[in-house]
């Protein structure tokens, strides 16, 4: 599988409120997942799978930085992201920012996400999104991607092979 044709670029804030770009994490592999904390099915499943893959891989500190980039910046403030990830997916760092910067990050990573009405959501909307996971190498180059159907075992095996 060839490297994904994305620009792994963003200019956002992390869930501690610190300004970050892709350069902030140079020297580490980035595992990047887009989503939103109110997502009821896709994100919980993806984050649980990726957490399991990382648990099995058990990388040394700093080798892999898992990032969860919101596509719903209006609701996903740094505090909301921090609480959500701490409760269930503590390996991940959440990223958010102004809508135009989220749009730029989506464009760079070829992520589709669009708000639509959702009567089952307390705020009345959801943001269906692409559930692809990207791997970016320590020099900031796109290295790999996993579509949603990939299993935790496959991702663990790929991480072992690619980050060697």
């Amino acid at each position, binding site marked *: 599988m060839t490297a994904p044709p994305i620009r792994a670029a963003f200019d956002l804030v992390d869930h501690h409120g610190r300004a970050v770009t892709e350069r902030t994490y140079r020297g580490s592999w980035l595992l990047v997942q887009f989503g939103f904390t109110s997502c009821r099915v*896709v994100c919980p499943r993806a984050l649980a799978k990726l957490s399991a893959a990382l648990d099995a891989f058990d990388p040394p500190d700093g080798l892999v930085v898992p990032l969860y980039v919101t596509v719903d910046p209006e609701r996903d403030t740094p505090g909301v992201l921090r609480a959500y990830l701490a409760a269930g997916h503590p390996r991940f760092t959440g990223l958010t920012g102004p809508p135009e910067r989220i749009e730029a990050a989506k464009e760079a990573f070829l992520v*589709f996400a*669009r708000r639509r009405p959702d009567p089952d959501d307390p705020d009345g909307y959801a943001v269906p999104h692409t559930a692809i996971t990207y791997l970016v190498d320590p020099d900031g180059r796109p290295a790999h991607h996993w579509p*949603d*159907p990939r299993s935790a075992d496959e991702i663990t095996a790929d991480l072992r092979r690619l980050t060697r």
Partner: protein
Amino acid sequence: MTSTTTAAQGVGLLDREQLGHLRHWDELSRRQPNDWSLMQGKGTGQDDFGGYRFQLAYMVYGLALTHRHRLPAAPGLFRATIQRLIDKLLLPEVWLYWRDVSRGGSVFNAHLADRLHEEWDPVVRDNIMYSAYVQSCALLHDHLFADDRYAVPGSLTFRHWSFFWGGGEKRFPYDRDSLTEHLYWQMVRNGYIGIACEPNCVFQICNQPAILGFRMHDLVTGGSRADDVVAGYERAWADFGRLDAAGHYNMMLSEDSRAVRANEAPSPWVDAWCGALMNTWNREFVHEHYPSQVAAFLVPGPDGTCSVRSAPARQVMGQPVVTDTCDTGWVAAWASEMGDRATLDALLAHADRFMAPTWRDGALYYPRNDTPTDADGHRTDIEPMTGNVLLGYARLNVPDGLWGLYNRPWTAEHHAEPALVEVDRDVEVSRAEVVDGVLHARLRRETAVPGDGTVTIGRVPDGARLLVGGADVPLDGERVVVRVPDGPTVDVALLP
């Protein structure tokens, strides 16, 4: 010994009409560049459903189905024809419409006119109604013939230059891998809902060939793009539904507004085309809905014949929409894929009685006729896509034929078996299969067309014995050229 080609067993010899369709496709593939005679439809500028791209691509699909299911041991009958058809698919006359259509202006994308611009590269954005056919036809070729012809960089190049206008050469080189990669990432970018045909118009139908192409690419190169795309497609369309409120396939979705357009009329081609293709990966669903869907379109006729009722031509912006619906052909193709023999036979009987079947030098086609009905009200209207391609496709397909191509691929074992690896233009092949290790072929020399009257059997095992018309023919090496005698059919057997 069990053969990998046993799929051919039980489907019998090709009959006269099936052989006539194959001959017609071969003849169309041999036309001089830009000789499109017999292929011109009602539409202007190749922008409708009867365009050359569809005729060329579905001849390739029909040949692929015939090779896979009926004549598996005759790659030499199909390979060069498919290559010639793909060569034609790459001609600018086939894709140059995109330079204009890319600018938008239809009722569905008029509001986007400021954003759209003239685009020469016919596969770089949208236009899945062309790009997916180039991709899937190239990959069907490489899968069926265990070949890497279209892996060569630039093997799928779109180029145009005119002495009279347009400046320098326009040249867009792709190959099976780069094109597949490009289409896949367009799918990702669109959230797997599909890639648009005309700007902003995502048709369910036109994304099915890309899925077939992804599957063939997975078979040729490894990977699971097809499964990934299907999973994403299923999830994306779950919000809209594959079917409309009346149980017909939703036709399209506007990319920007996410508004779904149902099969309102309903139009037979929408259900038939979508159902036939979607059967590749979604067989139970397609079969489940077929009976009620098709019943809405069939008109019983005399003596067991049956025709297809088209929807009235639409009026849009005060204009009648002029297009080749190809309703008859698509319903026949759909019935063949569903294994609905009764409906297929009735449709073919109607065509044979009311649509002027025409034989020329061993080739069979049904010429275009724009007259809606005869004096007694029997449908006579037929488009080149139906008369050249789809009725033949339906005759040559087998039940779940596309499903079989997708789900029961050939393995390396098949490609190691003896086969007719070259077939001259004037040789008719009505049987070619390996059964229990024995290659069986039935051949006839067609004197109405030029040729040397030979076939070449390749991959001949050591110690094999060749019988032509019951007589022993000496063998020397792993290839042998067999001269087909004039006269009636002759049976050939290669025994291990």
